[in-house]
């Protein structure tokens, strides 16, 4: 059953990702992105990362996607159906991306240690377990991440508001 679920959502995620990069309409791309994130969230659940799945849904499908949609709306002009076209070099892009995929896939497939099935899950993974880690071992990156978010906030404000040189 898990296998079926996995394949459904994995294929969904990949297909949605494909949609993101191939859709000619930027709004469609944004919606595909939401779909993709959701599919990935399901994969997290399949891998016993329930908390992460929740975070994924909240942050990505919620916050990030909404932000993107806002940005799309703010910057949209002209015909929306051609708002997201490919550039001239897309063929080369496809080639390089394919090459990257090939080496990644080869490496993954060539590694016998990774041709394994899951052992029973023993490690927890609840918000509590994670928070304990974050506040002890990963205290410094955690604090830094807090600063990082502040910086992002400030930066977004500064940039969006615009800094002018006084003449």
């Amino acid at each position, binding site marked *: 059953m898990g296998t079926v679920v996995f394949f459904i959502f*994995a294929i969904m995620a990949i297909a949605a990702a494909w949609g*993101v990069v191939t859709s000619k309409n930027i709004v469609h791309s944004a919606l595909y992105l939401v779909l993709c994130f959701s599919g990935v969230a399901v994969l997290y659940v399949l*891998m016993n990362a329930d908390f992460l799945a929740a975070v994924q849904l909240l942050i990505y499908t919620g916050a990030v996607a909404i932000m993107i949609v*806002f*940005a799309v709306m703010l910057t949209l002009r002209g015909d929306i159906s051609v708002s997201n076209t490919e550039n001239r070099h897309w063929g080369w892009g496809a080639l390089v991306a394919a090459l990257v995929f090939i080496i990644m*896939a080869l490496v993954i497939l060539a590694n016998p240690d990774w041709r394994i099935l899951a*052992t029973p899950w023993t490690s927890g993974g609840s918000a509590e377990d994670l928070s304990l880690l974050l506040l002890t071992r990963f205290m410094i990156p955690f604090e830094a991440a807090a600063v990082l978010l502040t910086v992002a906030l400030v930066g977004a404000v500064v940039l969006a508001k615009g800094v002018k040189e006084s003449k």
Partner: protein
Amino acid sequence: MNLSNLSVGLSTYLLVGAMLFSIGLYGVFAKRNIIAILMSIELMLNAVNINFVAFNRFVWNQKSGTNYILTGHVAALFVIVVAAAEVAVGLALVITIYRNRQSTNVDEFNWLKW
């Protein structure tokens, strides 16, 4: 949810990650709209997260000591945070540059060259 009897292997998960990564990469390479590029980057970061979680689940699930067992999750969490921050700044930048250039087409962002 009890999905303990799943039978999909690590490689498969990793392949999904790799595929998402490459698709995102393609998006970065090929899309004209800067927002689409930002979205593609999000895809790549997601692919990495799949990797982290999968490795945590399959390989290091039983590694002794509580200190280690959730490193992948923690990493994924941080990546999500960073991705969010990045996208926030990125979109703000998009707005800025749109104000300046009246465009979101990266092909036109080539004033700085040579």
